[in-house]
């Protein structure tokens, strides 16, 4: 009775996920057997991630629904899986030495990374709310401990604690929202929901339904840190160990935004009017608050936390416009942001001292004296964050704002532009700390292989997307298309 499962049809769609699972078990075993030199575990992880990327490339182009429509593997999910896996890849590369320095014998760091990536991969491919929630939780529950991973630091624990409780709180809201939707429609399958909604002659404005949609939106807005659900972000980012912060900023954002895109574009398409109106407000508030508060930050990680809030706002600008064009622009932004932010945090990781200090702006002054190349690269990342050509950040902003203008949200675009002028100030702040000020401390340690490789990958991404963005742009478009039918 249980026998007639067609295994190929089971294994194929989730091949990348399975590879990650395998990686998890492998590295768990290594972790158990190796007492020191945990970076070997990291190597396994890298292997797993590499294979995962390859396999997802191998699956590219098809659209397979599996597990009785629990998930569907399509270009959208694959593109985002690759993105998060790259983010994870860079993060692991960066933390190889870091983990051994900060928390020796803590090999399960890599396990947590892997399991969160697993969660993200299911999150982006889920077509059923159950899977969605489970994946989300898998991701979050692996991130909370990562955020508090360096227990020697009070701020780390504190950030993790706040993140955890608020996260659980948000999850409760999300679940309640789903429950409300379910209580009206009686199904949790996304496509069914979309169909039932669109079949109604009137886009059903049932109040419970609306509340459910709102709560679901809130649940995810929390994950991507839109104001006013951003409160955890600065604390968690500042507290978390540098590589993890990068990972959070890049991968978690990407995956959660993917989920939002799916919900907005597919599931609640019938509600796009109220949804995009709400998003309009959220994005304006977010861009404004994030950039304004970041201006005076002294701690680089905290500054980048606020900046990541602001960037979430810019991505939402893409969502506001609501059509495939805008969505793909948001995707592009996510990808470019992933490269940029992981790269920046690779450098921050390198500069962070064992006791977690070394993130003050003053620690960056005169960096270009000792590390000309490093500071040059850092400036490139900063300029990319600020959206100055020829970097990925510019192309991303260009894409997003053009989508907004195309759909008649010129005001939003102008507002975004103005806030990004503000953002220019604090990104330049880092640049001129590195170039114009006199060095206060000597960082003599040389850059490790892992970090340098990670930086190189990130830099490649930033430049590539900045100068030859066409390929990725079409990919994002294509993946959005694959999502829509």
């Amino acid at each position: 009775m249980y026998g007639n499962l067609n295994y190929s049809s089971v294994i194929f769609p989730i091949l990348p996920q399975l590879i990650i699972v395998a990686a998890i078990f492998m590295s768990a075993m290594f972790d158990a057997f190796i007492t020191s030199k945990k970076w070997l575990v990291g190597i396994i992880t890298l292997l797993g991630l590499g294979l995962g990327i390859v396999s997802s490339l191998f699956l590219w182009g098809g659209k397979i629904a599996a597990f009785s429509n629990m998930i569907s593997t399509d270009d959208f999910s694959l593109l985002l899986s690759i993105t998060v896996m790259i983010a994870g890849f860079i993060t692991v590369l960066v933390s190889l030495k870091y983990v051994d320095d900060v928390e020796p014998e803590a090999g399960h760091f890599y396990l947590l990374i892997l399991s969160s990536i697993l969660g993200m991969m299911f999150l982006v491919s889920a077509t059923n709310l159950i899977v969605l929630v489970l994946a989300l939780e898998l991701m979050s529950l692996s991130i909370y401990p990562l955020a508090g991973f360096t227990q020697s630091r009070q701020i780390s624990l504190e950030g993790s604690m706040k993140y955890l409780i608020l996260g659980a709180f948000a999850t409760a809201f999300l679940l309640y929202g789903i429950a409300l939707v379910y209580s009206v429609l009686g199904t949790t399958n996304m496509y069914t929901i979309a169909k039932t909604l669109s079949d109604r002659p009137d886009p059903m404005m049932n109040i419970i339904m609306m509340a459910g949609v709102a709560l679901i939106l809130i649940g995810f807005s929390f994950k991507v840190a839109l104001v006013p659900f951003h409160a955890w972000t600065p604390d968690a980012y500042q507290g978390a160990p540098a590589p993890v912060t990068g990972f959070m900023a890049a991968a978690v954002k990407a995956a959660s935004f993917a989920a939002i895109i799916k919900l907005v574009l597919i599931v609640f398409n019938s509600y796009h009017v109220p949804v995009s109106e709400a998003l309009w407000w959220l994005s304006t508030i977010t861009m404004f608050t994030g950039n304004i508060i970041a201006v005076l930050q002294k701690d680089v990680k905290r500054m980048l936390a606020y900046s990541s809030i602001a960037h979430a706002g810019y991505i939402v600008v893409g969502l506001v416009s609501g059509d495939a064009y805008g969505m793909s622009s948001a995707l592009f932004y996510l990808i470019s942001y992933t490269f940029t932010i992981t790269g920046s945090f690779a450098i921050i990781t390198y500069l962070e001292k064992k006791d977690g200090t070394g993130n003050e702006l003053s620690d960056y002054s005169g960096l270009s004296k000792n590390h000309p190349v490093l500071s040059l690269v850092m400036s490139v990342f900063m300029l990319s964050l600020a959206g100055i050509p020829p970097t990925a950040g510019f192309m991303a902003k260009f894409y997003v704002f053009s989508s907004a203008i195309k759909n008649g949200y010129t005001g939003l675009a102008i507002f975004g532009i103005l806030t990004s002028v503000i953002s220019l100030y604090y990104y330049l702040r880092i640049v001129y700390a590195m170039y114009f000020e006199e060095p206060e401390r000597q960082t003599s340690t040389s850059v490790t292989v892992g970090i340098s490789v990670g930086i190189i990958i990130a830099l490649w991404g930033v430049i590539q997307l900045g100068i030859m963005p066409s390929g990725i742009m079409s990919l994002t478009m294509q993946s959005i298309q694959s999502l829509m039918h």
Partner: protein
Amino acid sequence: MSYQFLIILSFVLFSIGMIGVAMRRNIIVVLISLELMLNAVNVLFISASKYMHTLDGQIFVIMVITIAAAETAIALALVVRIFKSLGIVKIDDLKKLKW
């Protein structure tokens, strides 16, 4: 018995949990309130599944319980750690990170 009543019930329960999270200082109690909120969600799911005649609700509840369990595990571990290394049990004593 009416569907509306059940929904309202779940909502009331959820809100009480919410109040708890919003106002209790003791981390443990905050966690308890979170559990209660999730439980309220479960109530809604079950009643919905009764009225919708679909099993998704009930399955969902199982998953929610699982999630709750895992969450609590981590949370409590973290509480222990914080208590041991910082001696803090009141959540608003965690104020090192601000601005």
